[in-house]
């Protein structure tokens, strides 16, 4: 229960942050703007007209579900990558603030175990990320659904995948704070993980460009451990991919989950033995 208490406290703090408020206001504002400027007309199951800011869009004249797919793909990609980047920036100082001198001693003197404090923070941040994602997905889906009569639930999957990807990134960010209590370092590591995640997703394509030998072996070894952020992003944007690629999803999720657990285990071991 204490774990959830800590998570709730993190959420309470989060909703009072300007960053997080900006996130929700930003999502709402963008969708409101879209609702006023995007015109979609569906006739007999086909997308008859589509306009954005009065300009005719390149989609249309085909099955509405197919025609709307690029729109949802773009929405999913925006939700996934935008969510990740915003999450990295907005949550970078959550853990450093909890570990601030004068605060951490106070918290550690309360009947909270250290693992509860660390994992509670992790859980709180993930719930925040998921809530923001689901909020964006719901608004977008309702917006398109009410305009076209087509209800596609793809964005909810995208929000979930974004949370999984963010979990692996935030585990590193949170872990780093147990060594160096710095929001800047945490955010920088989050950014590095984001970029490495994209590189690792393309490792099969990149590896042949590296000279065979130690260099390539090293690249393959290092990137094999890194969460495949872009692979998950692709699956989030295109859930209609070929079955072979979709079959990759369960193992990808298990792998990223294990990575997250490994990083958290290391962070926890450091946090448990750290003097404050």
């Amino acid at each position, binding site marked *: 229960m204490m774990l959830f208490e800590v998570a709730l406290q993190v959420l309470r703090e989060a909703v009072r942050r300007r960053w997080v408020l900006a996130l929700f206001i930003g999502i709402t504002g963008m969708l409101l703007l879209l609702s006023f400027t995007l015109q979609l007309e569906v006739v007999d199951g086909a997308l008859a007209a589509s306009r954005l800011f009065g300009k005719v869009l390149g989609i249309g004249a085909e099955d509405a579900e197919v025609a709307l797919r690029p729109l949802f793909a773009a929405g999913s990609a925006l939700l996934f990558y935008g969510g990740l980047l915003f999450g990295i920036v907005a949550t970078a100082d959550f853990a450093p603030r909890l570990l601030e001198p004068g605060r951490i001693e106070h918290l550690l003197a309360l009947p909270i175990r250290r693992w509860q404090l660390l994992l509670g923070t992790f859980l709180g941040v993930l719930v925040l990320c998921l809530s923001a994602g689901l909020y964006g997905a719901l608004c977008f889906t309702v917006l398109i659904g009410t305009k076209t009569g087509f209800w596609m639930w793809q964005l909810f999957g995208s929000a979930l995948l974004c949370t999984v990807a963010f979990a692996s990134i935030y585990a590193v960010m949170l872990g780093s704070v147990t060594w160096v209590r710095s929001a800047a370092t945490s955010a920088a590591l989050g950014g590095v993980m984001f970029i490495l995640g994209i590189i690792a997703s393309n490792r099969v394509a990149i590896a042949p460009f590296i000279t065979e030998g130690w260099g390539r072996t090293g690249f393959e070894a290092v990137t094999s451990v890194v969460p495949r952020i872009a692979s998950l992003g692709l699956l989030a944007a295109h859930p*209609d991919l070929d079955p072979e690629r979709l079959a990759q999803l369960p193992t990808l999720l298990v792998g990223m989950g294990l990575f997250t657990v490994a990083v958290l285990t*290391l962070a926890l071991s450091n946090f448990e033995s750290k003097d404050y």
Partner: protein
Amino acid sequence: MSPSSRRLMVLPLVALLLGLAAWFMSRNETPLHAGPPATVTFPTEMTPREEARARARRTHRPPAAPNAPAPGAPVDPLLAVLPTDPGAGAVVLEANAIRNSPLGETLLACMGGRRQLDMMRERTGVDPLNDLDRMAITTEGVSLTGHFGEADWDALFPDASRSARGDQGRIYELPDEGVRGENRRAVGVWGNSMVVLGTPEEVEAALDRLEGGGPRGTPILDASQAYGEVYGVIGGDTLAMMLGRGGGLGDQLPPELRDAASRLELHADTRSDVGVVARFEGEDPTRVEELGKTFKGLLSVARAQAQLEGEPDAVRLLDMARVSHGEAGFDLQLAVPQSFLEEMAERCRVEHQAREEAAERARAEGEALPEPQTPTAAPEREEL
């Protein structure tokens, strides 16, 4: 135990977890690229490469007399033999180009490899894979271009009556096997580069058109329309017949729209992914537009049906099908991604291998060979 030694004890566990994570994430790992094929080219106009190809194919008609000047502009011999009746239809297949494309590989696999083609080469002296350049299927017959110098036509048609036609043509009229002469067939050979199949009259007319004799007329397929690896035109009567006949897509069209389109121009690019453009045109733009919308609706319904019936291949193909309206009519665009063709080729290969093995076993057991099955093509394409 000191904190540092406790930390050290955790390291093997972390390493194990990271190792497992790496193993799981590397499973089924494929190079990253987005789903829908980005390389599908829909042939909508002639490319410079195709212009050069068309130029290279144009030849002057042979002079009627040894010292007479060559008549008119040079023409593409295959286009020249096509019917001139605007209501007829003709589709040209760039056989050699298709053979060297993923589609060709697929077709070859579905035909059971080279064995049957080798048999054909031994029998006729013509290697369809190497000697055949183009094939035109028209409402009046079939024309082939290529290098047929190795073929011994006299030996091939020993019972046929042979006659010369024009400067380089000769016609082999095959013995009539029909009751009232409706099965009269003839093979026309023009030099070593063209063969025309049809009724004796059709073959004669084709050879006359090629050499500039006979009644003057414009072939239904213009040189500027010869782009893509498959191209053709289907005229009013033939098109109305196609759309109006029972079964397939035509059956689902409202009767009042079946004759809305008077002309269908077809182009397919098969270099990697197959992109097909079928351009429908008609006299009444409103009715043609209605026909386009109907097609659009039919595609939506077909896709929904394929989804319901759990046919992922059909869904994938229909996902890429679209109708776009133009000034004179509308384009129906269909795409078959290369990956799809490769999958199909693999399926055909496996099926064919299984049949071969079954036949081998049956032979070994002294039983009769099983009836060879027709290779399965994509049913959804047939329907379309």
